[in-house]
């Protein structure tokens, strides 16, 4: 079986990450419960006329994928696999409200077309003229991990040599309004650096696109090797610990081998205990990392976690802003990532320095 490597990365997030040069040296702090992305100059990457017609999700996805390809030194790939929880949700909102407001009259197809979940993947293929395998996974907080799993299987078995994978989600006004009503978003505005100590229900919503070139060939630009990824539709709080132990055992890794654990804590007092099971127990002496105060919560937020871990492994730097605890570590060789959302759709991912 071939090994699987991350050879290029591209991130558009609520931090200035699209440049790929620095690594969270300056953090943007927000005081809100919904945070936007820092937009790159999209015109630098895509034709301005085309960009104007594109939904935000498409624009973010297309540009993040371009950055990842450039980073890997590639013009094209064998396959494109996209993860998105909601697709271009603004267009879904636009089309539904237009149906209701105008009693099914005077509708135009643009927002219907863009609302289709695989629009981002289709547009990336169209732009690259990539006729290869093209899948879109839409399963809540494991949408991105599904793309990684699919790509890993293909690369291990040499069905493809280079695959573009990514997670992308945009914010929609109505979606945010109704998620505030059911307390998935915190009622109060909060300073993002104080997210973990908030002691309230709900989280802060973000958006973004994180794309990666994964390959079965190592090269100079390689960030990390993908050792394993597993997803679980359900896990009880009491099952998390044993699941992690089993996962590490299956991969012949001991807890002491884990140099950092990247956790998906989002400050929701009702669900952060899933992470606390690990951070206050098995991994209490491990360097713990969090990131949702930087990118917000969204269905594919965990792809930002993979971006973060890739950066740590390549640069061997761990920015202060992402530390939960403070352990002095010389080298970062193996990183474990754990994410879940509202107690469902858990994922464990293992990356190693090359």
């Amino acid at each position, binding site marked *: 079986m071939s090994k699987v490597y991350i050879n290029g990365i591209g991130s558009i997030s609520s931090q200035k990450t699209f440049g790929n040069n620095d690594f969270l040296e300056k953090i943007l702090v927000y005081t809100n419960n919904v945070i936007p992305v820092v937009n790159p100059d999209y015109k630098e990457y895509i034709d301005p006329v085309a960009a104007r017609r594109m939904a935000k999700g498409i624009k973010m996805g297309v540009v993040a994928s371009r950055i990842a390809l450039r980073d890997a030194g590639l013009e094209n790939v064998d396959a494109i696999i996209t993860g998105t929880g909601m697709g271009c949700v603004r267009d879904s909102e636009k089309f539904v409200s237009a149906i209701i407001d105008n009693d099914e009259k005077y509708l135009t197809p643009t927002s219907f077309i863009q609302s289709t979940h695989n629009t981002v993947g289709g547009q990336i293929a169209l732009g690259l003229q990539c*006729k290869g395998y093209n899948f879109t996974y839409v399963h809540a907080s494991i949408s991105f991990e599904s793309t990684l799993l699919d790509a890993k299987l293909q690369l291990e078995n040499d069905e493809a040599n280079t695959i573009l994978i990514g997670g992308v989600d945009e914010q929609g006004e109505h979606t945010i309004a109704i998620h505030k009503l059911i307390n998935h978003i915190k009622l109060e505005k909060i300073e993002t650096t104080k997210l973990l100590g908030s002691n309230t229900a709900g989280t802060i919503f973000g958006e973004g696109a994180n794309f990666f070139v994964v390959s079965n060939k190592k090269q100079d630009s390689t960030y990390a090797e993908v050792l394993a990824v597993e997803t679980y539709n359900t896990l009880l709080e009491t099952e998390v610990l044993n699941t992690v132990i089993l996962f590490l055992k299956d991969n012949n890794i001991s807890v002491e081998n884990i140099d950092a654990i990247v956790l998906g804590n989002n400050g929701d007092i009702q669900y952060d205990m899933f992470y606390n099971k690990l951070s206050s127990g098995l991994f209490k002496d491990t360097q713990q990392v969090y990131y949702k105060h930087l990118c917000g919560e969204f269905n594919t937020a965990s792809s930002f976690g993979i971006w973060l871990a890739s950066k740590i492994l390549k640069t061997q730097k761990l920015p202060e802003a992402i530390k939960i605890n403070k352990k002095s570590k010389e080298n970062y060789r193996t990183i474990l990532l754990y994410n879940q959302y509202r107690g469902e759709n858990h994922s464990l991912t293992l990356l190693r320095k090359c």
Partner: protein
Amino acid sequence: MSKGVAITGMGIISAIGNNVTENYQSLINGKKGISRISKIKTIHQGDIMVGEIASTNLELEKQLGLTSDNNYSRTALLGAIAAKQAIEHAGILDITTYKTGLISATSVGGMDRTEAYYYDYLKNKDVQKYIEGHHAGDSTQKIAEQLGIKKSLVTTISTACSSAANAIMFGARLIKSGKLDRVVVGGTDCLSKFTINGFKTLMILSDTYNTPFDENRKGLNLGEAAAFLVLESDKVVTAESRDVLAYIKGYGNANDAYHQTASSENGDGATLAMQKALEVAKFIPADIDYINAHGTATGNNDLSEGRAILRVFGDKLPEFSSTKAYTGHTLAAAGAIEAVYAVLALQNNIIYPNLNFETQMKEFNITPQLQLKKKELQSVLSNSLGFGGNCSSLIFSKKQ
């Protein structure tokens, strides 16, 4: 990667039947499920026809034994019913005996509830339970719960009209690679105002019965359906002495990279998908005995797909037909219901007629199979083509 992928159970609910037997009876008796829409209030009622499932949501909820506080969308209800049939058909009593996953497909997800309560959500607490049911993964989570699949690989694919074919493909790869012992694969989509109006704006809805591969075709009829198949590894088949219904022998997915909604004139993506599927199966075109075409009856699809079929099969073209005239186009479920139909074709050595055909298309001289035909079948190829240039082909065979 040389392991077999056995199909050991199937379940289906569509406009032509509430289970596998009813669907098969309709197929061989030429019974269409196309009618005027009755369950959704739409201004297009008089100028479209649909493939609607007879049962109401309440009846489906009752069938599943759900309490009134449930937040199932119709997509989840249909999916749960079809998936439970598949498990029962396979004779699975305890799903936890083997490492079992679920790969489902949907395009509308919980849109039926969202469009009904869109503004109500903001003021009526009673309907807010449906907010969490909107995203596409929710129906899959509910189906997994209904089947008792826990702590496992459960995910959802949404690639428009090829979604379920891709769910089957990913499931097959999970079995082949040894990642899972067993996986339930398929798709589910209910009718919604969202899709009715969406396709209406694209001007590809027929105002009468859809007529695949006919020169005067006027567009598609939307339909709703769900279908699931149980895929099992050689290990499970042997250990449980399973009756294997058929094997998934080949699969291919490619992108047309031509246009967001239209297919390329010569069907580049569909050609590539069929070629890949043949390659994976280690088949030559002559090994295919019947093609269940995507055949939506839109001007664009049937021309593009027909040309692609000609490019791949040339003068070795076996019988082909589209079953969309029976069921309508069931979007993300289409690849799954047609997989069930492909397996039934193999089991019964039957080729289904392409209903409603009258006039030969001008652009080429291939004609779909028009009458029900008995033929010894070894392998069937099934196409699913979708928005975003997404093209998929699956090959089902009697032998591993």
